[in-house]
């Protein structure tokens, strides 16, 4: 094994979750603003409450493997967030954690992230184009997988995924929502960026940041 290649290990899993918590705290107001336009304005505060609880849970958890860190993150989100984002992100992290070997290389991480996407789609029954989390998550997984398959290291794959997730989130602006509360607005949901896709982009950017070291 090439020891210059960073692996996804317990320390990175924890750093990722803590970076998400920090990003959610920093971007809480923006998520809430996006959600006020086409939802009920609580996406930022809900995720903030959830990841605050996750940080407390992680403090009680150590030492644990990377998979356990992420499944515990998921369980805590399910128990503390409510709404749609709690079960969706909760199931995603539980699936990622369950699929992740410790330590994991880029290809393993790609498949674990894909398992998370499958969990989101199974629970939320959303397809790409519905203006949801899936619209950022799907291109992120594709980019991560393609970059990893081309032999790139973890930081590079994670950066590609973050770029793709952010692009995916921006691409939700012209879409009409077909799932979730935004769908009640019909055509009035057009012209707004989806808050769920936006928070998904935050998750992937956080992963890219911690993978870059």
């Amino acid at each position: 094994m090439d020891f210059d290649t960073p692996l996804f290990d317990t320390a990175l899993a924890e750093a990722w979750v803590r970076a998400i918590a920090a990003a959610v705290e920093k971007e809480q107001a923006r998520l809430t603003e996006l959600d006020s336009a086409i939802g009920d304005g609580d996406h930022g505060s809900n995720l903030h409450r959830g990841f605050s609880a996750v940080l407390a849970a992680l403090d009680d958890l150590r030492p644990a493997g990377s998979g356990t860190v992420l499944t515990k993150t998921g369980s805590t989100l399910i128990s503390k967030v409510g709404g749609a984002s709690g079960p969706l992100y909760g199931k995603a992290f539980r699936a990622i954690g369950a699929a992740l070997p410790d330590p994991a290389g880029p290809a393993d991480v790609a498949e674990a992230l894909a398992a998370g996407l499958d969990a989101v789609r199974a629970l939320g029954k959303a397809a790409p184009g519905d203006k949801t989390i899936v619209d950022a998550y799907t291109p992120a997984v594709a980019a991560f997988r393609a970059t990893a398959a081309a032999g790139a290291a973890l930081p590079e794959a994670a950066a590609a995924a973050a770029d793709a997730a952010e692009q995916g989130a921006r691409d939700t602006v012209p879409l009409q929502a077909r799932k979730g509360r935004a769908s009640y607005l019909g055509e009035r949901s057009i012209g707004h960026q989806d808050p769920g896709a936006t928070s998904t982009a935050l998750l992937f950017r956080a992963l890219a940041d911690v993978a870059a070291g």
Partner: protein
Amino acid sequence: MKKLINTPESVLEDALAGVAAAHPELTVDLPNRVITRAARPAAPKVAVISGGGSGHEPLHGGFVGPGMLDAACPGEIFTSPVPDQMLAAAKAVESGAGVVFVVKNYTGDVMNFELAAELAAEEGLAVRTVLVDDDVAVEDSTWTAGRRGTGATVLVEKTIGALAERGAPLDEVAALGERVNAASRSFAIALTAATVPAAGKPGFDLPEDEIEVGVGIHGEPGRRREKLRPARELAAEVVDTILADRHLAPGDEVIALLNGLGATPLLELYIAYGEVAARLAERGITVARSLVGNYVTSLDMAGFSLTLTKADAQLLELWDAPVDTPALKRA
């Protein structure tokens, strides 16, 4: 924002403490956020449990008591409760005859109750879920999350609560809930937006002379914006919109719920109801029972919703059955 609160962060726990202080006939489990009846039913019965985001009071906690709910699970404001709450509620009130979850059709509520039902099933509980989706403002198609659950929730909870109280079996109670939901349609108009305490400002800007038509109960805008008009015209539009869904025909009897969204005085709700009743009479619909007041609110949103449930002898009898809850009492 001018609100009678301590802090935006403590709104739910402070309100639950108030419910506990005001209602010794209820038990409020503050850590688990579950409201149950203080007295256990004398004989085993189907446990009827509901829950949803807070901000819709008296829904659901105000409907806990003999003849209606066994337990309610309040979530954060406008945010569905978490599965742990429903599981705690189910374990607290289940008496061997099974559990019915009454779930309003919102993505988050559906998911959290689904996870709760899985957890309850793992614990050996028999669970049925009744989904309420009565709001005709949302087109029921593959292009939306489906119709929202609104005022019909009160009718479902009242009627299946009455049936469960008599010892009816689980499948019968759940089937009645589905039947009442299928017989119900609702539509709402907002005069002002709601202010979520954590957000600190109204969910949308609405000029003084404009209204949102086809709103939900979570502070989101409606289907379209119109100029404010006299109550007579708004009531007629609401009635006509519901009747356009064709679940009623001239000659039918209905139970009518004229519901305030939180910030409209009862005086105005009665004005609206009078106009609704007149319009229904014009359209050949007979109101067999009516209920006017604030039952499914949206914090401090001004406006009203109308729910029309096609009535029959069984529904009327269950609607009239005794109930003793903070928000609905009938001897």
